[in-house]
């Protein structure tokens, strides 16, 4: 019967769902699926040769290591920035708050050439470090700096709203029960914020793993030394080794999906607290 197929009173369900699915399929799903189909054309030997080659293994190590370190540094400083922005008043706070999103808004190529120039031995910052024998640009340290830059907003923006929503009664309760300031922070506030902090960390980490634009300029792109996975894939593409690029891309995609899953689970975990505390 026609009647039972009606979905309430609002029109456009089939139109909008159809358009959504069509557009999603054309732009996202089919192209992504193509990667997996293409990689299945490779034999296992070809696949493993590419995916477990020494330059690839070195690239994974560097990508994971640098991304992890960058996310960790951001976790610490991003947390402090979020704390200061929510809890304290100081001159220029609004400006700093708006500026935090700069790494999102600034095209990565601009970030890349800027950081490479700044940290070059004759640059504003590199010039200060050169006398101590510290080289940043064209080294692994430079990659770490670039990944820290692009990951900076994630922690701030995930922790900030949770911290702002935190009921000040919780701290007052902790204080009334005899906790000092440090104990109140460590035993009450920090556990409440830790899911958000972890989520921000994972987001920053995931973003850093895939980053290309800001790294390509500051890295010397030397295999085994300063080549992260996206640079390696780009190199294969430039050499028209499409099959090898696809194999590496599949590895990256699987890692991205796993991270996405982890972030979804984290999100679910952090919402658990909110369930008992409706806004």
């Amino acid at each position, binding site marked *: *019967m*026609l*009647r*039972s197929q*009606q979905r*309430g*009173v609002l029109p456009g369900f089939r139109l909008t769902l159809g358009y959504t699915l069509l557009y999603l399929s054309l732009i996202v799903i089919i192209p992504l699926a193509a990667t997996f189909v293409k990689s299945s054309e490779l034999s296992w030997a070809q696949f493993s040769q590419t995916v477990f080659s020494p330059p690839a293994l070195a690239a994974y190590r560097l990508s994971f290591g640098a991304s992890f370190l960058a996310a960790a540094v951001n976790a610490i400083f991003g947390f402090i920035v979020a704390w200061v922005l929510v809890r304290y008043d100081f001159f220029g706070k609004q400006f700093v708050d708006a500026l935090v999103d700069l790494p999102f808004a600034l095209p990565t190529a601009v970030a890349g050439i800027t950081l490479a120039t700044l940290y070059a031995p004759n640059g504003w910052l590199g010039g200060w470090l050169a006398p101590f024998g510290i080289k940043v640009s064209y080294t692994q340290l430079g990659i770490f700096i670039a990944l820290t830059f692009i990951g900076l907003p994630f922690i701030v923006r995930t922790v900030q709203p949770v911290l702002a929503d935190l009921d000040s009664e919780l701290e007052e309760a902790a204080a009334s029960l005899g906790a000092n300031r440090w104990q109140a922070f460590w035993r009450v506030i920090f556990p409440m914020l830790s899911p958000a902090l972890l989520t921000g960390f994972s987001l920053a980490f995931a973003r850093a793993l895939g980053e290309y634009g800001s790294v390509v300029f500051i890295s010397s792109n030397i295999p085994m030394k300063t080549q992260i996975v996206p640079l390696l894939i780009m190199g294969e593409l430039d050499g028209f080794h499409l099959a090898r690029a696809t194999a590496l891309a599949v590895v990256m995609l699987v890692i991205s999906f796993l991270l996405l899953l982890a972030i979804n689970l984290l999100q679910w975990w952090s919402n658990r607290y909110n369930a008992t505390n409706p806004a």
Partner: protein
Amino acid sequence: MSVEVKNVTKKFGNFTALDNVNLKVESGELVALLGPSGSGKTTLLRVVAGLEFPDAGNAQVLFYGEDVTTIPASQRKAGFAFQHYALFRHLNVFENIAFGLRVRPKLKRPGEEKIRARVGELLKLIQLEPLAKRFPSQLSGGQRQRVALARALAVEPKVLLLDEPFGALDAKVRRELRRWLRKLHDEIHITTLFVTHDQEEALEVADRVAILRDGRIEQIGTPEEIYDNPATPFVYDFLGNVNLFSGRVREGTVIIGETEFAVEETAGETDTDAVAFVRPHDIRITREANGQKTFPARILRCNAAGPLANLELERLDGGGNFAAQLSKEEFQQLQPKAGEQVFVELKNVKIFSDDFSI
């Protein structure tokens, strides 16, 4: 007959919101759909409005005899006031009320002059003329509710449907608006169906009350009918506080503990377990026993704050506790004390045989 609902069933997944419901509303009548949450009352109202469609079957919704079952909400000409008002937050009061007129097809759309006149009329009716330029966020709850009503009335609906019209308001505003609604209805006489979970509200405002439970209409009648003659234990319980005394029925008499008294309605029943329902204000307390009709009890607590005095008593035959209500005068005459032993007589007892659940 202005609204008729026939054989309507509506399921959401495994949940049966409406289970073969039939309802007739006379022209100009004000009918309350009363029930606890989950009883299907809002779903029924939404089915009438065309906001939900009944499950396939021989379900029908009729407006003045015309079958509107498959007609979408936008063409049904039912005025609907939502529980949380659903006022358009980007439009001011005037434009909210005018909305239904402005969206009419070109040929039927009234001119600007007519729209102004109509909205002005309605603003006067809801006594909010000075607030025409305000936005919904600048109004109080009661004002929003009145705007929602005016907006629904602007399109000259065949029926007016109100979903928990006073549900989101505080007690005092609620009472005022309730009276205002009754007065309004007496003036404009539009067939109105409203949903509420507040039995006091339903009994005070409505011409007839339909009590819903688990997607079925349990009883329908005038407020007096359903209050004085509840058809089921559920209705009895839902309409007010009640004491339950379990006992036996035998040829027109009820035996509760050692008490025995005649009840008309049970004449047919022969020797079965039964439960007697008695409202707290139908319990008479005396210091002297009155033969078989009374039984002894001890007063546990007295609370005389407010217009009525509330007593909690314990049956001496071990039958449990029950509540009684006395008027201020009765209370002052009797001057009961906690711990004191008294005799209790039950009036207006309603018997339901034992196979029921509330």
